[in-house]
């Protein structure tokens, strides 16, 4: 594929990515009527995070340890930066020191 073709494919990608993003903003359906909408954040955050911690082949131990610490810090302190910092720092230490 030459570079012009790649550019055309990217334009196509841009179009099909934008559509699902923009259409819900113009729908006439009152989405709030659907009860399940309120569960969307919890469901999405969980389905986004979990595959980073485990796969069908097993658990990523170092990331899981960092994640458990993140969950505890989030629950106890409810502070975003502290949570994110602790998680990344712990993961860095574990990988640096090759704990697992």
């Amino acid at each position: 594929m030459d570079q012009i073709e790649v550019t055309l494919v990217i334009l196509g990608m841009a179009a099909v990515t934008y559509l699902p993003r923009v259409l819900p903003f113009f729908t006439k359906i009152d989405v709030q009527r659907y009860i399940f909408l309120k569960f969307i954040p919890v469901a999405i955050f969980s389905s986004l995070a979990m595959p980073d911690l485990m796969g069908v082949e097993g658990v990523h131990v170092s990331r899981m340890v960092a994640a458990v610490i993140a969950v505890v810090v989030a629950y106890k302190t409810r502070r975003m930066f502290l949570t994110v910092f602790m998680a990344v720092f712990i993961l860095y230490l574990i990988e640096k020191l090759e704990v697992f």
Partner: protein
Amino acid sequence: MVVELEQRNNNQPPPKNQNTIKTFINHSSNFGEMSEFKIALKHSIPIVLGYLPVSMAFGVIAANYIGSNSVLMSALVFAGASQFAALQLFILSSSAIFIVFTTFLINLRHILMSSFLNTYHKNLGKLKKVAIAFGITDETFAIASNGLKDLTRDLESSNAPNTSNTSNASKESKASFSPFKYQFTLNSVSYLSWVSGTFLGFVAGSMIPEEILNVLPFTLTALFLYLLVINISEKRDVGVALIAGAISVMLAGIAIGWNIFIATLVACFVGSEIERKIGG
């Protein structure tokens, strides 16, 4: 980078209002002191920290295969997972139609995020909706769904006590917070970090040491976990999270993007069924 993050964390100005410091987001939603712009700027820091290494990695890898089109892709598509998938398909010389269709499937999940965020933006004009829709990603959704919830709730609660002169006060403060400005700033900063990160990766290769580059994307995972924890308010939320997480993990290897879409739909459906059975 990590040390820098800690310093930034410590350098937060001391809270002026003790009641609003429970979470960072709550603390930030002090309208008198901070504009939507500044609040959104602060909220976008974790996204920027997560986006820069990932987009740089994308730029480094993509530069070898699609050249400057890598920056174009980040600028026009602005959707991480699908960009890496498309890059892989470019490398495998897949057909154009297949690449576009795969991108569509991966990014269909944003329909759920835009639907949810539209509850905060439904009264906006067309142009503003068109503008913010472009910047809806997993991460901007994550921050905005939470930020907007807190900011609008703070408004309601701060309006509630003084019943004597409610109408004037509520009209004034309602007008003083613009969900659009907040969302647009958040999206723009995230977008700029994504595109400039791609550009940096494209021109300069990897400048950050690999061991740090490897752990920084975990910023985003930690961000999702934080938001998951603080959004859980009752037992059925835990159930919904467990179902969504399990399905997402099981399908992750099979259908990228779809695992999130299907997991979210099924978990939300189960949650609403439970709610209907036992009463909400």
